[in-house]
């Protein structure tokens, strides 16, 4: 706290209010200091580093190179490729939403045993990402994997080379991500559905609406706040996908077909020790996330409905 901030406060505040002001600030000081040390300072540092050719060892400021890293990034084919892969993986977001909503609608009935089912769908969410990624790596195994065994058992022919093929590896990752996150969409949609008053449906039914109409014109608009939340968190998380790729396809895939932005950034910064270049990529990634989130918040009035 600096002096210039306190002075005007002192003038206006009573003694009791000043005491409260001081205690209030003291109580929020730990997270605020943590924010300065582990967020604000690193961000400034990352920005400065992104303007240098720093390798993590030499003097960073001696390596100043202006916007060169950013210019280089724009022409880096590998960067565009990993950005493309990252965006393709985001196909999992709408797939997860649709499945989640359909399942939640199914669960939003008074049937015995629904709670047990809800628990089962949620298990992948609480399971360790590394452990289930290892499991799915095995499920997708070309020769002995569970999936290809089932395909062989059912059709008699050999299934695709899931993780070894440029296209199938993306399908595999999307399947994995939808599986891992489906429980969250179900829980959230279920909570959203339970907030819709029954009489909305009853009134519409009297007016002659059929099941599809009810779903399309009552359910979908009224759960749109949940859809919005899933979209925002899905996009923010989607741009940062990394660990599942690192575990399941440690090489980044055939011709880098599975690698994501953070995967490439991690390799640049920690394997090739191009900390400056890695920082530039990280900074650009945050910028993309920030812009997309801002656009979504701007556009939310157009489609996100509230109950009142």
């Amino acid at each position, binding site marked *: 706290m600096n002096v210039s901030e306190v002075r005007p406060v002192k003038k206006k505040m009573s003694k*009791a209010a000043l005491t409260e002001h001081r*205690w209030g600030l003291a*109580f929020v000081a730990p997270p605020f200091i943590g924010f300065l040390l582990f967020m604000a300072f690193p961000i400034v*540092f990352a920005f400065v580093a992104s303007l240098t050719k720093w390798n993590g060892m030499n003097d960073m400021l001696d390596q100043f190179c202006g916007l060169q890293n950013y210019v280089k990034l724009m022409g880096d084919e590998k960067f565009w490729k990993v950005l493309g892969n990252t965006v393709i993986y985001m196909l999992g977001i709408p797939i997860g939403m649709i499945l989640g909503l359909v399942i939640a609608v199914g669960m939003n009935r008074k049937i015995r045993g629904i709670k047990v089912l809800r628990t089962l769908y949620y298990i992948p969410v609480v399971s360790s990402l590394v*452990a289930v990624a290892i499991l799915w790596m095995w499920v997708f195994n070309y020769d002995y994997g569970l999936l290809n065994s089932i395909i062989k058992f059912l059709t008699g022919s050999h299934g695709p080379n899931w993780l070894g093929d440029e296209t199938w590896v993306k399908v595999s990752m999307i399947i994995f991500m939808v599986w891992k996150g489906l429980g*969250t969409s179900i829980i959230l949609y279920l909570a959203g559905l339970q907030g819709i008053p029954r009489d909305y449906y009853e009134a519409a039914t009297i007016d002659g609406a059929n099941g599809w109409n009810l779903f399309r014109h009552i359910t979908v608009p009224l759960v749109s706040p949940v859809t919005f939340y899933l979209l925002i968190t899905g996009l923010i998380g989607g741009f940062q996908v990394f660990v599942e790729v690192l575990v399941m396809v440690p090489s980044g895939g055939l011709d880098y077909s599975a690698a994501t932005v953070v995967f490439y950034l991690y390799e640049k910064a920690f394997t090739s020790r191009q900390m400056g270049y890695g920082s530039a990529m990280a900074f650009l990634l945050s910028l993309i996330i920030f812009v997309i989130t801002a656009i979504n918040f701007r556009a939310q009035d157009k489609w996100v409905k509230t109950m009142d």
Partner: protein
Amino acid sequence: MTLQRNKKTKLVDTIVLILLILGAVAMVFPLVYMVFSSFMTKNQILSAEFSIIPDPWKFGKYTEVLQRPEFLRGVRNTLMVAIPVLVVGGFTSSLAAFSFSKLQFKGKNGIFLGLLATMMIPFAVVMIPQYVMFTKMQWTNSLLPLIIPGLFGNVGVIFFLRQNLTSIPSTLVEAAKIDGCGYFRIYYQIFLPLMKGALMTQLILWFMGIWNDYLAPTIFIQDDEWFTLQVVIRSFNSYYAVNSDYPLIMAASVLSILPTLLLFFFFQRYIIESVAISGVKG
């Protein structure tokens, strides 16, 4: 008429239930397969014939995993991170949530928004500077990079607890002040007990997060003496896959999932409720 409708609803209910069960089976099937294959022999797992049930049942892989010193060390290290972070971080988070929700001070909204904005910042952008910082401080040969940042509290937890406190009248603070109660005592004796339930749920979720975290440990921890459990599991996977000891890898994975799964089964009502609240209000 009503009888017919009831019949129809019953039929729809049954169909829906069957579909939901099929879906749930598909969801859980890979995990069930993981458990079964941890009891198989290597030969069975690698045989061309498709089988799910172990034949014969082998329990030895679990003892083998539990006898690996790396595995036990991984569990110990993870707990050595989780315990101080949850105790101290739970305290600082709940104290800050109390202050944000019930006390009046200048700059409150600005600080709160600043903290909230950090939830949008990708870890990727801070991981490089943090790595450099921790290396400079020579923390990478210890668990400190995982412990210290957590002690300052967790923004998500603060946010949730603050929401939770809005339902409690602020007049409680005024009344306590008149009785001559200090601010810390107001937190400790009145508000902490009131947010106990919400705090417990948040701490359980936080524990799961620490237990399952892989990215931070793998970047910040250089010395394998201090590898957390997830890092150990991953290294098992690379190490034992070479000689295709999948039953052992699966057994280790099952053991690493078990604690969070048990916590979830025990506290699922609270966990699901708190997840739902953060989505609907968020």
